[in-house]
């Protein structure tokens, strides 16, 4: 048995760890005001966030729970990319590009914490798009689901100048555009959405008028420079799914791949055009495989109830431990509080997304954390029955229980790993819900081992020492 100084040292560090985790896990804000020498002073503290200024090194972080879609509400869409026209080797890259394009479009709309993930199952390339807070599905689908192919086409024999200018002014929604441009020879220049990096709304530096800015990649820059040099004064039409979006005239050769389209747009129009251009930059066609929309009210209600249920369950379990194991039960309950605090803090630090199954995983792992204590206490009881002195019984109990605790928990960890699928095996689940459950289960089991064995053990040792064997624990 290690000496008491060591135990005390360990308890000190454990206490510090506990305080730190409690600080992060439980956000509390308190302000005290008191009267000092006729002046009202205010003292306050806030936990749950860090705001440090150490020798000019600023450290500031707000610790928040990440809430899953099923809790905060929102939309999940699973899309499949049609890769039939893409070379086998380029497919992962094309998928990543599609994800990037969708992310950009989603960001443009200012949705908080969207997630766009890529996944592959056999020959099917997928995008899993999660849009928290968006519970209008039509809007969501417009945002991500449009299969738009953007193309830049040179209009060789333009109609009278007058017409073109009007067309430009009338904007993209004018149905007459295609009719009026029918007599024009369209000349593809091999420039499309693939080479368009991004489009955004910008303002003319001189006139302040809204414009649309295009940025091409290296490949596109070359083509664009070449075409604008040879065809200054001609019209370079931008077509989305075969219908003209804009028909701007090339005023000067553009060599740096940064084009600005001016016209008499309103801010709204220019914004809309750039969104459509961004949408068009999607390199592969996609279709919707699955969509889920969860109203925020449904999730919130469920979560509040479930958390309440969890707390009640926790209370009953604590009571049960107290009744069955007396003072030792109290220790286990204390270890459980440390456990809960560590777990929640870790969730916040590494950013575990809380989903409903995740909460279930947490609650389940609390049950398993208690198990380690029960195993140990039962062992201690047995050793005591064999008339061993308390100190020896305690150490033997911990030692013998460890074997079964270890084997049993390794088995659970292995199962949790299959659920989490960290290597992203395509034959296993990649669903966020199942993974969320796996992650909370894994964290729960590992931390449960730590608190159940390390925390309880050192506490028991310490108490044994202070009671010096006189009183039976």
């Amino acid at each position, binding site marked *: 048995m290690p000496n008491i100084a060591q135990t005390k040292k360990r308890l000190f560090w454990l206490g510090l760890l506990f305080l730190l985790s409690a600080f992060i896990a439980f956000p509390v804000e308190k302000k005290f005001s008191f009267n000092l020498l006729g002046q009202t002073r205010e003292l306050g503290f806030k936990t749950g966030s860090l705001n440090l200024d150490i020798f000019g090194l600023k450290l500031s972080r707000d610790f928040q729970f990440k809430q899953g879609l099923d809790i905060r509400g929102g939309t999940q869409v*699973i899309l499949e990319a049609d890769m039939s026209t893409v070379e086998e080797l380029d497919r992962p890259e094309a998928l990543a590009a599609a994800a990037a394009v969708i992310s950009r479009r989603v960001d443009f709309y200012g949705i908080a914490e969207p997630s766009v993930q890529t996944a592959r199952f056999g020959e099917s390339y997928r995008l899993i798009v999660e849009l928290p807070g968006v*519970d209008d*599905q*039509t809007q969501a*689908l417009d945002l991500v689901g449009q299969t738009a192919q953007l193309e830049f086409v040179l209009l060789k024999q333009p109609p009278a100048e007058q017409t073109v200018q009007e067309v430009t002014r009338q904007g993209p929604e004018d149905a007459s555009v295609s009719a009026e441009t029918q007599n024009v020879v369209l000349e593809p220049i091999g420039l499309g959405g693939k080479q368009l990096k991004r489009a955004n709304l910008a303002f003319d530096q001189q006139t302040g008028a809204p414009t649309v800015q295009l940025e091409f990649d290296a490949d596109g820059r070359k083509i664009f420079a070449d075409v604008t040099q040879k065809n200054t004064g001609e019209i370079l039409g931008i077509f989305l799914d075969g219908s003209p979006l804009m028909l701007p005239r090339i005023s000067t050769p553009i060599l740096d791949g940064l084009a600005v389209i001016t016209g008499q747009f309103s801010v709204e129009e220019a914004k809309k055009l750039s969104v459509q251009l961004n949408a068009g930059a999607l390199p592969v066609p996609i279709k919707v*495989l699955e*969509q*889920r*929309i*969860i*109203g925020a009210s*449904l*999730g919130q*209600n*469920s979560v*509040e*109830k*479930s958390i*309440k*249920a*969890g707390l*009640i*369950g*926790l209370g*009953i*379990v604590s009571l049960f*431990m107290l009744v069955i194991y007396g003072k030792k039960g109290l220790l286990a309950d204390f270890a459980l509080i440390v456990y809960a605090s560590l777990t929640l803090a870790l969730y916040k630090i590494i950013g575990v997304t809380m989903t*409903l*199954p995740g*909460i*279930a995983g947490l*609650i*389940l792992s609390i*049950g*398993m954390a*208690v*198990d380690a204590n*029960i*195993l140990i206490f039962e062992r201690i009881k*047995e050793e005591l029955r064999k008339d061993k002195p308390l100190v020896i019984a305690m150490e033997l109990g911990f030692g*013998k229980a460890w*074997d*079964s605790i270890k*084997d*049993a928990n390794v*088995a*659970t960890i*292995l*199962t*949790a790993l*299959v*659920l989490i699928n960290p290597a992203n095996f395509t*034959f*296993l*689940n990649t*669903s966020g*819900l*199942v993974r969320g*459950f796996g992650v909370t*289960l894994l964290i729960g089991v590992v931390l449960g081992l730590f608190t159940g064995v390390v925390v309880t053990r050192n506490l028991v040792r310490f108490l044994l020492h202070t009671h010096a064997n006189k009183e039976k624990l």
Partner: protein
Amino acid sequence: MKLLNHYRVFFIVSLFFLLPGIYSLLKHGLLLGIDFTGGSLLEVKYESNIGPDQLELKQAVEEKNYSLVSIQSSGQNQAIIRTGHIDNQQKDELIQALETKIGKLTVLRFETVGPSLSKELLEKTLVATGLVALIITIYVWRQFKDLKFGVCAVFAMFHDSLILLGSFSLLGVFFKIEVDVLFVTAILTTLSFSIHDTIVVFDRIRELRRQQPRLEMIKLANIAVLETLNRSVNNSVTIILMLLALFLLGGESIRHFALALLIGAVTGTYSSPFVAVPLVLEWDRWKRKIK
């Protein structure tokens, strides 16, 4: 107490619980949710009081000519409408039709799952289950240096999943409870649960065998089961209390999941001393006969 002297009794007990479920599984299968079948689900909350039979909702769907699977109440003035695969536009049309019938409503949830994805979920579940079984067998075999422990632990594990599957088949028949992607998670958790418990009992047998290598297997098993029973019961009580709170008081969307875990926890606890250990005894007996 010599609990296991007539260990074959426990096989009969297991069969008693297994057979109705297996019968129901063969006859009715599981009531599969759209995660497995594909299709669409629309959950709405409405303001008007239209009575519990929700005939108006049914009429609205039928007028639209969508293939209606079921309409189910999911709380006060709330209903879940399940249909064949409908797209977003069709959903909007349906909501319009519903609103003309019963007035304003809010969409709580709309889910639609394509047929290819649902097939995939089934495949992935089977693969995951197989993988867990394989890993556990090898791990237990390695830890206990005896193949029979690994195999029997996995058999007890399948016993538990079969009970869970059977229960939900029956629940589907009588209470229209569907299985969804969360149920898959519950099955996989039951696997780990079951093994967790079984290993604790096996560990005791291993320890006793080290101390008394000459003792007969059946005597070892009797002592081991008796000595771990206290812990097993206490431990299960804590987990069951937790899940019971979740089942009774938790949110609607988590209730069936909690129920599945609850069944898994109970059978997982039972199967360790009364399925896994008797199987080991049976294995031992056959081995001796062959010799």
